[in-house]
């Protein structure tokens, strides 16, 4: 059913975004405690919220306010509490298509993030303990789906949602990080800037192993866009989305499949046959914008051909 596919897709996307935001918040908070020069929350707010610049400027130096805004503020459409709620709403309507364990897990997540003790701790105690507890709940979701869900169409839509979201996030983060930089050559040379960035996308250890020559913008782009063994790279995410989409192939839906398949395939080739040098030559912002646009059109094509049930 289209409605079911739609719900599963979004249930999964919201958790993926939640996980991405939580990790970003955790590492940024940790770096705010390190007293490194000119720490600010601007890049995070610009990536994950719709705040206007004056408002961003108002709270960007205040870790506690940002954390509350991003995690428990019900007026922020992109706050963790709202995303978990939405994921749970989606799950609720398709309870017969997900396992009892998955539903229970999302339910617990929902109650955890709305717990008053948790918001008190976020305000007054160690925020990392709070963020860790939330991240653990997201990990529980991933593990539970992996272990209990049947490998049918439903699981395919969930996976496509997850990886599409991940690719979008990676692109958005790069856009903000590198835009921030073009204005500031000093940051470009600051190792701790890159270190925390890589840590926030769980890519620091991989980077150290792969690139021996310290932190260079080029290598970072290479890892986050192209590295197929980095589970948060754009390439890996698109590749996984394509893999799961492939399984949806059927005679009954030939036309729809071909249309979306063409778009994903084109996007993947576009990434596969570029490299850091070629994208820098073409202009990084252009390239990232193009990738974003293609990712979004894959999303809307899915919506049009698979989820549209009105």
């Amino acid at each position: 059913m289209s409605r079911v596919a739609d719900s599963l897709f979004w249930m999964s996307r919201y958790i993926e975004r939640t996980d991405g935001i939580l990790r970003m918040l955790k590492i940024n908070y940790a770096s705010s405690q390190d007293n490194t020069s000119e720490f600010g929350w601007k890049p995070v707010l610009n990536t994950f919220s719709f705040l206007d610049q004056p408002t961003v400027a108002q709270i960007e130096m205040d870790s506690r306010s940002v954390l509350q805004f991003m995690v428990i503020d019900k007026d922020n459409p992109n706050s963790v509490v709202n995303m978990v709620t939405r994921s749970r709403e989606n799950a609720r309507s398709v309870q017969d298509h997900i396992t009892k364990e998955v539903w229970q897990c999302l339910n617990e997540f929902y109650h955890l993030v709305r717990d008053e003790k948790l918001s008190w701790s976020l305000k007054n105690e160690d925020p990392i303990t709070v963020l860790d507890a939330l991240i653990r709940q997201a990990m529980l979701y991933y593990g539970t789906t992996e272990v209990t869900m049947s490998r049918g169409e439903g699981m395919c839509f969930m996976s496509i949602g997850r990886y599409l979201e991940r690719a979008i996030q990676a692109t958005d983060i790069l856009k903000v990080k590198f835009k921030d930089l073009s204005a500031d050559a000093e940051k470009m040379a600051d190792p701790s800037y890159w270190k925390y960035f890589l840590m926030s996308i769980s890519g620091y250890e991989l980077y150290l192993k792969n690139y021996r020559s310290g932190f260079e913008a080029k290598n970072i782009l290479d890892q986050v866009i192209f590295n197929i063994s980095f589970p948060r790279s754009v390439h890996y995410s698109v590749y996984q989305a394509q893999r799961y989409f492939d399984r949806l192939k059927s005679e009954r839906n030939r036309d729809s499949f071909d249309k979306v398949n063409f778009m994903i395939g084109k996007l993947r080739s576009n990434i596969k046959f570029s490299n850091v040098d070629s994208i820098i030559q073409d202009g990084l912002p252009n390239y990232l914008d193009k990738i974003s646009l293609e990712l979004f059109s894959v999303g809307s094509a899915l919506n049009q051909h698979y989820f549209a049930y009105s």
Partner: protein
Amino acid sequence: MNSFSIFEGYPVSPGTWDEMYAAGKVRSPYQGIYEFLQSIPLEELNRKEELAKRLFMSQGITFTVYSSGEGIEKIFPFDIIPRIVTAAEWDSIEKGITQRLKALNLFLKDIYHDQFIIKDGVVPADLIYSCPHYIREMQGVNVPHDIYVHIAGIDLIRDHDGTFYILEDNLRTPSGVSYMIENREITKRIFPDLIPQNNVRPVTQYPNILHKNLVSLSPRKISNPTVVVLTPGMYNSAYFEHSTLARLMGVELVEGRDLLVDNHCVFMKTTNGLQQVDVIYRRVDDDYLDPLVFNPASELGVSGILSAYRKGNVAIVNAIGNGVADDKAIYVYVPEMIRYYLNEEPLLKNVPTFQLKNKDESKHVLDNIQKMVVKKTNGSGGYGMLMGHAATDEEIFDYKKEILKDPRQFIAQPVISLSSAPCYINGKMQPRRLDLRPFALCGPSGIEIVPGGLTRVALKEGSLVVNSSQGGGSKDTWVLSA
């Protein structure tokens, strides 16, 4: 403010420099943390202590103690109250250690080459040759960039007037740096926002600097040389540190059995065949490094590694044979070395030290043994020490017999009181003695000392021994920016 103060009745022992209190008043660098501690209820402090313990356990930050043939995982005791070093104090420490390390590197190069310092009669030859850590095989070997000491953990203590003294130079495989890094991570968790509020300088860059230095030592001039950390294995008490450093640098952690030497080059056995190794940061002692040359029973080392090193095909960090420079009998001569090689006055003082091999000094020590600390010249970890003021007559008698057997093996120092700082013990602030071990990194581009270090505390009341094997713990060390 609370009606009950956790600092109430905090006893500053007379004749001791307390880091937090001066004449009953809180020193200004401690004012911030003092006020914070006054403002929170006792239960919260207890909760923080619990959290710290839990974090150490869950992150596996443990060391192994061997007793009755069994290794037991333990947490290195951590006191939650940070120790503060002011910008001015740090400046003098930094300059002093840099100077000392420069001289020690020149000394090692000299000893293993021309030995001018012996010929000029500054250091007696017999002292060098009788040192068990003098490695004859290193004579005439050129090491990359003439750096012998790449990583030094020089211990500092403070006397009753607050003056810093060098207690010992650890130039072989100093450990504890992972605690410098992890203690800071834990403090971030238990005292949110206190670090930025107090303008504490960060320490997280340590592994990056170390890695940069290691890469720059590669004998092969290639863009991505293979750097490894060599550990004695997971049963070593510092294994956590070895694996942490390898992880933070993104390099392979190897054991002796993972390496082999072929045609005077060192290789690592991988699933894709042999891979040449360029730089080895070893945490295995000289004695165990190469069974062909040193201890033949060693299974921790690699046969033939010394020949590869002598040929210049692999860099070994720290260099082999450094023990001749951090021997406690040589320690006495370090101020002379500084004058001899650098033509400078030492910035940081040595603790006055008596050599028991000299008759006069020996007599003085034995007559005043109650006021002395006697140590083995090649000992470490607080083992084999005699604390004169605390020892029984019987212990002194036995120890004297040991000394007379081989006086070269012993030195003595007057008991230095060591500075104290408040520790949170059993729900109260109590003064405990401490030292400071900053970690200095020496690379081709110079000496860098990460602003921080390991502060070790003697957790037993009245104790002056800070070693972890003797009931010592540690504190996070805050170096403030100016």
